[in-house]
């Protein structure tokens, strides 16, 4: 923000800090806890007071009190307590502030990762750690309901609990695992790749991270609500959603917090990519990961407000008795689905485009070849961006919407396969006659291409209206979803984590364990989800707690394989945690990559670069004699990027 003219320079960075305030008053979780409680109480009296003054009975309406106090004001109090707003509040109140105050920047000990930290590298790791916690919880829930589904009949849970687990699994995975995990990887890598010292708005970056644990906790707290967790599926259609017990509201609001996190991060990325590129880095010299995050951020900024709107309407219908989706009052029931899917379809592109960027990086580096068709790769991202807004109603082919909308949506859905196909063929062409290094990131990248291809093909089938009429709401859809989301997005997340692990931590992961993790995952993943194609086409519906006996055998196979898939994640966690603690020290450029993040130490210096590098060429010129991507101050003349 603008320079504050009337400040004196406060205590020098790091030196001469006054005695620490006591634990209740200094920024941290303790202050966060009591500020949460305080704001909850404020919310209670706000609701009580307004209802009393307006004469609305009952004066003490816990539906609204939970919503306003617990899910809106309370988390704001928590954020206040941990210190996310401190700098801005000091600045607003006129106290001396140093615009370049780096007291909360960078991490030297593990406690720093639990604070409000403005360093994009720290925030990236915070995102990854948090999202993997939710990944684990969501995965455990999946294994729970797969255990229930292993045999026909209800064994150890009732149908409402089952529905709650299924809804929670999906909500956690989509809103607080995949989307923010990509945000975390990008947070770490993009400023480094651009040659920038940090993101454009580091404090905003920190704030958007802290929205995320709030959102996930909110989802999970719905288990504690009377009436149980939200059980309407992650899609939470109206009017069912407005009539469910209070647990539903935890989903409605949790989505808002996750969405806000996503939007603020995306704004940050867009401004960073547009205004903070190193000299000489034109748009056509940016690495494809940056292109992918640029496109994803545009998708987020444009589409996410629509899911916010849909959740607002559902909450208004519940709390203020509006008739957005209530037919008796003139509302349009299908409107929820239109508005919801107008975000949620671009959401699936938000969940895959950064993965495409990661794979482009890895494939190019590990085959020692320039990316085939770099410009078309960038433009296909933009093509997916534009087309992605025109296909939402393919989720509504059997919803009862206007018939004339179905064929145009079918055509536009089929069209999206084109830019996606351009990308797949370009990756294959990059691999062709390359010198391929089959290490863990590359294995995951190759696994991604094959599994995403299968998921994409089932998607092309589903684009066709008659096939969807048959396969809608069956396990065929579940198979498609998981091939593109697990076989697609999650494999790229793993690939990215292994790829950037040496850069983030300064240590190298264990390669044998990495390969073991890959193969366990790949085999158990296919055993879990491939049979679902068949089971769905012969008639097993999705989101059912019980099913006909004829599906029993395949369901048992799927359930057992899903336990194996869960177990494979243990290998990953062990590898990451032990390698971070005690792994061999990694050099700065173990992959001999050319992008800028590999030209600094592992882990990078606190402000990334001593001097901003000068970019002189493209980032993928492997095997091209004399090609340089950038010149960093003080570096000697390079030898040719080794083949």
């Amino acid at each position, binding site marked *: 923000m603008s320079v504050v003219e009337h400040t004196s320079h406060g205590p020098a960075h790091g030196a001469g800090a006054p005695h620490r305030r006591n634990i209740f008053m200094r920024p941290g979780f303790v202050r966060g806890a009591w500020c949460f409680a305080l704001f909850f109480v404020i919310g209670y009296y706000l609701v009580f007071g307004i209802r009393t003054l307006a004469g609305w009975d009952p004066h003490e309406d816990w539906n609204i009190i939970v919503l306003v106090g617990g899910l809106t004001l309370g988390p704001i109090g928590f954020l206040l307590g941990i210190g996310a707003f401190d700098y801005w509040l000091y600045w*607003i109140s006129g106290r001396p502030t140093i615009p370049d105050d780096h007291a909360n920047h960078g991490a030297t000990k593990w406690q720093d990762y639990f604070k409000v930290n403005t360093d994009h590298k720290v925030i990236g790791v915070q995102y990854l750690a948090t999202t993997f916690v939710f990944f684990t919880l969501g995965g455990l829930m999946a294994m729970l309901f797969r255990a229930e589904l292993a045999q026909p009949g209800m064994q150890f849970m009732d149908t409402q609990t089952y529905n709650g687990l299924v809804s929670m699994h999906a909500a956690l995975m989509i809103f607080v695992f995949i989307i923010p995990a990509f945000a975390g990887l990008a947070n770490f890598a993009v400023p480094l790749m651009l040659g920038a010292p940090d993101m454009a708005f580091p404090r905003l970056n920190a704030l958007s991270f802290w929205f995320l644990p709030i959102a996930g906790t909110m989802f999970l707290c719905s288990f504690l609500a009377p009436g149980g967790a939200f059980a309407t599926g992650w899609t939470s259609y109206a009017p069912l959603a407005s009539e469910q017990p209070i647990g539903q509201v935890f989903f409605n609001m949790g989505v808002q917090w996750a969405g806000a996190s996503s939007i603020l991060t995306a704004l940050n990325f867009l401004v960073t990519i547009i205004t903070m590129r190193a000299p000489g880095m034109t748009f056509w010299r940016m690495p494809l990961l940056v292109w992918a995050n640029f496109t994803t951020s545009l998708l987020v900024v444009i589409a996410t407000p629509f899911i916010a709107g849909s959740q607002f309407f559902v909450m208004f219908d519940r709390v203020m008795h509006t008739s957005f989706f209530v037919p008796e009052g003139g509302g349009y029931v299908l*409107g929820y689905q239109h508005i919801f899917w107008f975000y949620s379809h671009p959401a699936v592109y938000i969940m895959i485009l950064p993965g495409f960027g990661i794979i482009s990086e890895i494939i190019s580096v590990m085959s020692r070849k320039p990316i085939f068709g770099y410009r078309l790769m960038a433009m296909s991202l933009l093509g997916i961006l534009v087309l992605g807004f025109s296909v939402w109603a393919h989720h509504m082919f059997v919803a009862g919407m206007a018939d004339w909308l179905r064929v145009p949506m079918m055509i536009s859905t089929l069209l999206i396969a084109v830019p996606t196909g351009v990308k797949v063929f370009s990756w294959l062409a990059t691999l062709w006659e390359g010198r391929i290094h089959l290490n863990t990131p590359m294995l995951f990248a190759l696994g991604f291409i094959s599994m995403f291809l299968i998921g994409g093909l089932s998607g092309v089938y589903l684009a066709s209206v008659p096939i969807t009429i048959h396969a809608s709401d069956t396990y065929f859809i579940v198979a498609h979803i998981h091939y593109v989301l697990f076989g697609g997005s999650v494999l790229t997340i793993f690939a990215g984590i292994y790829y950037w692990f040496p850069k983030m931590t300064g240590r190298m992961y264990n390669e044998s364990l990495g390969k073991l993790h890959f193969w366990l995952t790949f085999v158990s993943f296919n055993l879990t989800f491939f049979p679902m194609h068949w089971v769905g086409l012969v008639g097993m519906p999705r989101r059912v707690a019980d099913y006909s006996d004829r599906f029993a055998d395949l369901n048992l196979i799927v359930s057992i394989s899903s336990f194996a898939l869960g177990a494979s994640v243990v290998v990953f966690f062990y590898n990451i945690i032990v390698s971070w603690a005690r792994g061999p020290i990694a050099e700065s450029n173990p992959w001999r990559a050319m992008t800028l993040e590999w030209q600094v130490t592992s882990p990078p210096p606190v402000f990334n670069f001593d001097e901003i590098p000068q970019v002189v060429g493209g980032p993928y010129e492997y095997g091209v004699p004399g090609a340089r991507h950038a010149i960093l101050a003080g570096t000697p003349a390079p030898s040719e990027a080794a083949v």
Partner: protein
Amino acid sequence: MTAHAEAAVHGHDHHGPPIANKSSRIEAVVLGMFMFIGTEAMLFGSFFAAYFFVRVVNPDASTITPEKWAVWPPAPFEFPVFVAGINTCILVTSSFTMHWALQSIKRNNRRGLQAGLVLTILMGTAFLLTQFIEYAHVGFNTSDGAFASVFFGLTGLHGAHVLVGLILLTIAALRAFRGHYSPEHHHGVELPGIYWHFVDVMWIVVYVTVYLL
């Protein structure tokens, strides 16, 4: 890297970050504000989508009045078009005073800046108060049907944005009275100004579609 190693050896890394390269003519904070406004416009878009569904797509489902959308709002309800029209004039004028405030500080006219900001805040507050009174006297509430839902939804969303704008302007005004702005450094006025103009544009669109059309 060498320099960093040396600094580490000497036991301090108090050098700050290198100045990032400006790869675009537009300032980061201004671009950020415009993109944020884009996002908020999309949020209004979702509310307009609901309005479209209620009024154009599904007019027959209402049990209050089965007539077509030519009768809007359905009888016997009416929207306070005149009062809202006055409100529109107030808000548009406040944009002019806001613009004047910014022009003043660019020409180092601090009194103009302060006066402009105060006037804008007063008019914005008047707008909100008028809206509250209008809500109390409009004769229907949120549970009276889809038309009411859309009315309160769109105007309420807009009112919330006005409130946020007033908070930003109040912060700017307080700092203006403390002398924080100059012809070279006035982002703290410019950014709330851009936001305020967006609020104004949004109101005009809301007013035209909800009250007039």
